[in-house]
């Protein structure tokens, strides 16, 4: 155990993947011998949990997330909390109050976000039996996984309990796994999934099962968003895939619809989720005496929230307020249904769907902060649609910075596994 902790500590000053490094041994179980980290939006009792924000800089929760407990009980050893964009608001990992994370492939570049430390540490610690737990609302697992060239699963919404997950948007947040071994990703998912009686939206358990997969749909219009290089690498991979599967080239009509529907719904929910940070029971506090509540709350929140957080709170408040609610919030909900129905239509014909993950290679850290917010949001054009629909998706690294996104219908994670097995990405001796 000491070895991985020492290594992580030594590298952290440069790469900044961890906000907190701490060793907690696991009990005995099927994951004995493995080490894991949690994105810093997942609570661990007695361990500082910040969600990447200054307002929770010294917050120590009195309870643990279900994911943490399940992993410890299955034998895995905990090594720390990973860096993230504040409350999940970001696509590059540069919105953390604790500084950006550096990409192990090229330290001048971002790791992606918002599970920036999860993506980065999984690559950095690749020679250890290590996996990281991330969280995705609009693509925050797939994005850093693609930028750091690791495998990841963002499971169907409803498989993993969110008890102890500091919320971004509760109808969209999903807890997932990043690792250097594709099968390990599914093994861990099995362990962390399942109802726990504390999160009523967690309703099912995932169990690995052999599933035959033959029909593949490639979403051609998604490739148009990518740079030439990424397009070329991925197209070559598609050719390889065509040798083992029946491949159709189709369009997904509602990418733009999904993107803006997501930002409206996510910010509206986030603006209510973040209302609790007001300097009373937990987090940063000051002296409330002689101040009106509005004054006191506004001061604390103004002082300790980052700019992107403030931006999203304002947007989210607007879209659900009188006069805007029908036009934005309710319309976005309807569009969401439209996007889901479109996926359902496609999954009647195909076992899995393929697209790129990110349209660009990870930008340099100093350049990333110059990108305008609207353009940053546009980076999510390919990860948001499956996240909005809450369908499971897996990142398959193809080349440096270029990964393929493998999507399946709700609760059909085993189709993704079947696809990978037939493709030869997984050794079929696992069953």
């Amino acid at each position: 155990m000491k070895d991985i902790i020492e290594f992580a500590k030594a590298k952290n000053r440069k790469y900044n993947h961890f906000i907190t490094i701490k060793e907690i041994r696991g009990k005995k179980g099927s994951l004995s011998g493995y080490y894991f980290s949690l994105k810093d939006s997942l609570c661990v009792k007695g361990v500082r949990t910040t969600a990447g924000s200054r307002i929770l800089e010294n917050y120590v929760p009195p309870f643990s997330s279900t994911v943490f407990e399940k992993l410890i009980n299955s034998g895995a050893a905990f090594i720390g909390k990973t860096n993230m964009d504040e409350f999940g608001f970001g696509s590059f990992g540069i919105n953390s109050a604790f500084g950006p994370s550096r990409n192990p492939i090229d330290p001048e570049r971002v790791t992606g976000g918002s599970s920036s430390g999860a993506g980065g540490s999984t690559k950095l610690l690749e020679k250890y039996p290590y996996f990281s737990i991330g969280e995705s609302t609009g693509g925050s697992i797939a994005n850093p996984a693609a930028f750091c060239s690791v495998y990841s699963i963002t499971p169907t919404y409803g498989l993993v309990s969110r008890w102890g997950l500091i919320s971004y948007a509760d109808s969209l947040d999903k807890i997932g796994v990043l690792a250097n071994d594709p099968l390990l990703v599914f093994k861990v998912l099995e362990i962390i999934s399942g109802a726990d009686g504390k999160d009523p939206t967690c309703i099912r358990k995932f169990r690995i099962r052999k599933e035959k997969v033959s029909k593949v749909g490639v979403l051609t219009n998604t490739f148009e968003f990518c740079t030439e290089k990424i397009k070329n690498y991925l197209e070559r991979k598609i050719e390889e895939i065509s040798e083992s599967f029946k491949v159709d080239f189709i369009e997904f009509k509602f990418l733009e619809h999904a993107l803006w529907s997501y930002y409206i719904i996510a910010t509206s929910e986030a603006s209510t989720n973040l209302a609790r940070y007001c300097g009373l029971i937990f987090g940063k506090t000051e002296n409330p005496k002689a101040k009106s509540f509005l004054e006191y709350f506004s001061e604390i929140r103004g002082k300790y929230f980052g700019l992107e957080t403030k931006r999203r709170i304002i947007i989210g408040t607007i879209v659900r307020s009188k006069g805007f609610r029908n036009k934005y919030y309710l319309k976005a909900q309807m569009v969401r249904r439209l996007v889901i129905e479109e996926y359902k239509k496609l999954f009647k014909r195909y076992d899995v769907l393929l697209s790129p993950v990110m349209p660009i290679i990870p930008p340099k850290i100093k350049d990333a902060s110059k990108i305008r917010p609207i353009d940053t949001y546009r980076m999510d054009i390919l990860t948001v649609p499956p996240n909005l629909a809450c369908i499971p998706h897996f990142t398959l690294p193809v080349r440096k910075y270029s990964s393929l996104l493998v999507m399946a219908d709700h609760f059909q994670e085993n189709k993704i596994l079947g696809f990978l097995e037939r493709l030869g990405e997984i050794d079929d001796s696992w069953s």
Partner: protein
Amino acid sequence: MIVGLEIHLQLNTKTKLFCSCPNDPTAPPNTNICPICLGLPGSRPSLNRKALIYGIACALLLKCKLNRKIFFSRKAYFYPDLPKNFQITQYEVPLGYEGIFKGIRIKRVHLEEDPAKLVYPKSMKESEYCLIDYNRSGIPLVEIVTYPDFKNAEEIKKFLKSLLRDLSFIGIFDPTKNSWRADANVSLEKGYRVEIKNLGSIPSLIKAITFEIARQKMLKRRGIKIHRETRIWDEKEGKTIAVRRKEMEEEYGYILEPDLPFFEIKDELIRKAKILLKALPENRIKRILENYGIKEKLAESIVYNKLESAFQLTQRILKDPNLSAIIVGNYLAKSLNYLKKDWKEIDKNEYIKAIKALKEKKITFRLFKEVIKDICSGKGFTLKEKKIDVDSLIDNFIKSHPELIEKMRKDRKVINYIVGEILKLCDYRVDPKLIIKKIEERIRTHN
């Protein structure tokens, strides 16, 4: 006057609406708390099945239609008594709608969570800070909104008294533990609505509404415009005061509550709610009438005064339902109410002694009524086993009132007078019929 009410009542569940903390407002401050009702990051709500059933029971009591598929929403606003700075409530789709109760139409019935309790060192306006107790945070509330059908104070009183009584009977509201509060919407014909918030008792509600109607009438007479506003009732000053409101306070930015599933109100839940309604006074009265055929007024008294077990006990001994009903529904109820006591506090052994004594004619009914009063005030009942020599009582009386002997033979009324005097002498412990018999014997033998 045109008045509508919005009533919030705490429900008598064991745990809070969205967490397993004890539902006990009387506990020491900040002892019934957990991450959920504190709104700690990472916590999320979980709906109490019992609260849902109680909510359905309330909706059925008010003869509402039920929405068979419900969900919750977030009502967002900032205030120190709201741990999450939003309240989980039902906005778009209430549990029940379009009902009626005591002639007042019910607009909607829904569930929501109670905020925390704020305590002030001085008055709310003067205090430089507040103190927050989260015991109350998350306690289940049922909110009842009426149409503005109330025409006078009597209707309001009757409505609220009946509502609280019935909810208490079916067990979903415990007046010794749970509290309620009401907001009143008051307006004159064709006027703007003024909302008076947070009234916590029927008398203050009536006073506030009465004052407000008078205030509005006076403004109208003077030709002054009545603003749509919110006011509070100042008990000390005896008037309603405007609370300055900005437009944004009506701005709640409702969104669907994504941390909770939607709920189908299935037949099983409705069935459980209906079982609770069996305990309603009207249902209990019906059952007593069906089983015993006593007078309706007495059945009502027995049920409303919660004396059914007293009635059963009395009936078991006397085996005479009508007499038992009179005893319990009339005399026992009167004594208990007068002394402000509960049947639970009465010494059952003493009571049983008295009933048995009555049955065995050891005491007269008139004496029995006095005995009931004694038992209720805790004095107990001792049957003075003194043997009363009726004969010597009568003979002594006649000896000291010789003029009555002649009158006795001619006028029956004199006999009644003598009987009354003898009864007084023996503390009413002798059957008057026995006294008459003995007097008539003497008249005969004297002849």
